[in-house]
């Protein structure tokens, strides 16, 4: 009988040697060493087939390019392989859990991608006559309607391109309202809690305001008395995040709203944490004047490695007249786009970006909202808060929870549990990476030392949370065993180990440069 197996065994032999760490090619199994595209250049290679057309320089005003751009030539298979390999070095929500506080890393549904690419939506030119884009304007209006109703607010500015951009929109509207009252020279101070994200004071400064910090009380909320003491005729408003950056609902928010209004100021609310209260609480009922929403957080549009997002801003009656251009209006004849001050009945404060807004992001969020519906959004926020409280309950005996009581959609810990271990919050986080978990938000908010802020969202299963809890508990045990070097060395299993950020900032190398010609 012939030996078909030719001496091959189906049971693995060997396996007792320690794994090699260096390979010949530099690639290690499925993690490939991939050079820069500029290092893969080869004259004569191309990834497109375009005709070679001659053009004269007659109509170029003498500005024909003389020096080459310097771009490398690659074929299509090389480009596909290059970017595929790059993607394989990335963690994403599709790969695993991101307990990042205030980021709301929830599942990005794929039907959203399909909808954004529909012919008649993804391929529309912004400058087509509006008679040819009635469906697009209807979509924007429909999303706007959902956002207004979810927030209990009468108006919404749709054009801001990101959360921070939405903050800018809200604060500019407030400044415009104050200027319209003739108080622009006097009301120049904005109150911001010390726990606020850095964008808040940066935004206030970008509008010409000065920033006055409000301390937190022992319960992690705005100190109401300290806040009231800071009120005065020169106050333009307050910027408050609710739920706040400690993951707590600001109990006194209605009192704060009343007080700021009585003092003649306006209430900007940072809506980054809207995922906690969606469908259950309407910010309009709390007395706010404006609030930005992060469509890429609460409404599932993809983070894309750092954008694009969108930051529409819901507005009160007092601020609605100042909403920026452009905006959609719905009349008897259909939908129209108001793009100029001369066409507006209101007093828009200006324009924040080119064209009409992040349409691609609108389509994705509307798709998500329609899928969930009113009942689903309520269940989602409820699950998000439940998941965070579950983490709190299951970890509070081994980690130092910063504030007692129920948290909202995120839970804040500080580094007291690492005292005397020589392991910092950063080291702990890096060890989590080797365990297949993206770290939580670290060192923010600044109101506690070595903050660890965790937000699971409603997209995680109980099994994932239980594995996460088990892993953290195991790592915490390890911190107590005195093995600090284990943490200082982490991560060791990732495509790259810890990188030298100091060197990167001291002598910035921000692009590839061709080697000097000899």
């Amino acid at each position, binding site marked *: 009988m012939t030996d078909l197996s030719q001496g091959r065994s189906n049971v693995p032999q060997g396996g007792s040697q320690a794994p090699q760490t260096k390979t010949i090619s530099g690639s290690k199994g499925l993690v490939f060493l991939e050079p820069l595209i500029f290092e893969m250049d080869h004259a004569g290679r191309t990834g497109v087939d375009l005709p070679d057309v001659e053009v004269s320089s007659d109509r170029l005003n003498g500005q024909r390019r003389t020096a080459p751009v310097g771009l*490398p*030539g690659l074929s299509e298979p090389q480009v596909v392989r290059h970017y595929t390999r790059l993607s394989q070095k990335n963690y994403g929500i599709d790969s695993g859990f991101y307990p990042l506080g205030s980021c709301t890393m929830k599942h990005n549904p794929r039907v959203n991608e399909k909808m954004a690419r529909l012919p008649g939506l993804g391929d529309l030119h912004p400058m087509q006559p509006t008679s040819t884009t009635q469906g697009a304007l209807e979509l924007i209006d429909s999303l706007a309607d959902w956002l207004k109703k979810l927030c209990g607010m009468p108006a919404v500015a749709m054009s801001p391109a990101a959360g921070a951009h939405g903050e800018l929109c809200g604060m500019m509207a407030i400044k415009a309202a104050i200027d319209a009252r003739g108080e622009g020279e006097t009301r120049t101070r904005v109150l911001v809690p010390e726990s606020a994200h850095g964008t808040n004071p940066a935004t*206030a400064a*970008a509008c010409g305001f000065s920033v006055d910090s409000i301390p937190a009380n022992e319960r992690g909320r705005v100190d109401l008395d300290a806040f009231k003491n800071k009120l005065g005729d020169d106050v333009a408003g307050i910027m408050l995040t609710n739920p706040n950056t400690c993951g707590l609902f600001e109990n006194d928010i209605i009192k704060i709203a009343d007080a700021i209004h009585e003092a003649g100021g306006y209430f900007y609310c940072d809506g980054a944490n809207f995922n906690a209260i969606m469908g259950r609480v309407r910010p309009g009922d709390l007395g706010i004047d404006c609030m930005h929403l992060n469509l890429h957080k609460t409404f599932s549009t993809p983070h894309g490695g750092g954008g694009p997002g969108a930051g529409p801003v819901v507005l009160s009656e007092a601020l609605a007249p100042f909403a920026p251009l452009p905006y959609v209006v719905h009349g008897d004849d259909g939908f129209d786009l108001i793009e100029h001050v001369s066409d507006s009945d209101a007093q828009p404060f200006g324009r924040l970006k*080119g064209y009409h807004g992040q349409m691609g992001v609108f389509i994705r969020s509307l*798709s998500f909202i329609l899928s969930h519906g009113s009942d689903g959004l309520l269940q989602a926020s409820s699950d998000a808060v439940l998941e965070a409280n579950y983490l709190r309950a299951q970890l509070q005996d081994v980690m130092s929870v910063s504030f007692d009581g129920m948290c909202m959609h995120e839970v804040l810990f500080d580094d007291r549990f690492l005292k005397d271990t020589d392991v910092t919050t950063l080291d702990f986080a890096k060890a989590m990476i080797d365990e297949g978990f993206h770290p939580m938000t670290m060192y923010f908010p600044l109101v506690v030392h070595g903050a660890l802020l965790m937000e699971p969202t409603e997209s995680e299963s109980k099994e994932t949370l239980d594995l996460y809890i088990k892993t953290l508990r195991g790592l915490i045990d390890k911190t107590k065993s005195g093995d600090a070097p284990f943490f200082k060395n982490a991560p060791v299993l*990732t495509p790259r180990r810890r990188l030298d950020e100091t060197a990167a900032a001291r002598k910035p190398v921000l692009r590839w440069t061709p080697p000097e010609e000899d």
Partner: protein
Amino acid sequence: MRYLPLTDDDRTEMLSAIGAKSADDMYCDVPDNALLKAPIDLPSHTGEMEVEKIISAMAAKNLSPASAPCFLGAGAYRHHIPATVDHLVQRGEFLTAYTPYQPEVSQGTLQYLYEFQTQVAMLSGMDVANASMYDGATACAEAVLMAGRATRRNRAVLAGGLHPHYRKVTETSAHFLDIELVGPDSDPTHAALAASVTDLIDDKTSCVVVQTPDLFGRIIDLKPIAEAAHGVGALLIAVTTEVVSLGLLEAPGNQDADIFVGEGQSLGNALNYGGPYVGLFATRSKLVRQMPGRVAGQTQDVEGERGWVLTLSTREQHIRREKATSNICTNSGLCALAFTIHTSLLGEEGLNRLARINHAKACKLADLLADVNGVQVLNDSFFNEFTVKLSKTATDVVEKLAERGILGGVPVSRLLPDRDDLAHMMLVTATECTTDEDMDALVTALREVLS
């Protein structure tokens, strides 16, 4: 519900673990009168098929440029994007990744950003570029703010050919920071372009902002303007809305520009009805610490292996807070990736050919239109977009063309409504997507509409 993994059993177990009787207990800190007692009056959840029906119905009400001859530009351009691009950007590890703050598990994102930055620097002829901004208009506004910081002056000159959206966005941020903006009116018939700008430069000027090709398609020689600006210690900010033009036209960096800003949408990104797009921002090395936005930098890990990290973050708001260089928090990552992939596929030769084809198509179209009674082509120079003067008002002509299923061009009055003297002018674009049949259709329709 398909996006929610928790079952009722899970919820019961978890509520018990946290010591709550119901979900309501978790909201004990919310003032009672603010808690909604019933779901908001909006439609309930629905399946994927139904969602597709609803949104498809909205899509069906629009005239797609894919099914009509389309000559629209004005800062957003219809180009053919290779199929590879969209497939790669939809890989979950790119699509669903967070900002690369944990570089050990984000080398994919960081490497492509570094490649993007290099491409933008190469295209613009500048030293360094950032990892992108929201769009060209906000990049332009940020450049003016940067020039103000770098020169410690607060007066900027904006050339007449600057896209009105870019001008308006710049005006909006300037207004709140007491920055003075001056500049001539937009006028496609105004010949002395450089002088209209250089005459306004003085020793209080922080920067001069010039778009080329400009709003009307005219190609501008930046060198004399750069000289005038530098003569008083001001910076030259060069703007482009059509990045493909850099495949044929001189780089702003080689014309002594100090800052380059632009719209990158043309490469890799669909028109998307105006957004999301990708702002390009590049500058000289000596100004890098004033540059806003995110930036990826090269470094080594503890084993000496090359890798990349986000760097120079101390300029950003989350650290500087009220002293930040801008309030920009994010870039346009996925759009930058699409740009990078498309540019990688094109390469030097491909981009060069693409640019030449665009210019050739526009030349052909301009010559055909010049033969139509009632159409006058105004440009001596253009890349792929030029301005025509019509014998009837442009908005009327465009509506009539739309009725005939043609997206004819952008009436200048769409962007500059208060200028009666420009009401007969229309911006017309041709790209590699424009066919001979498209051009014939436009010519025929115009002949009818203008007769």
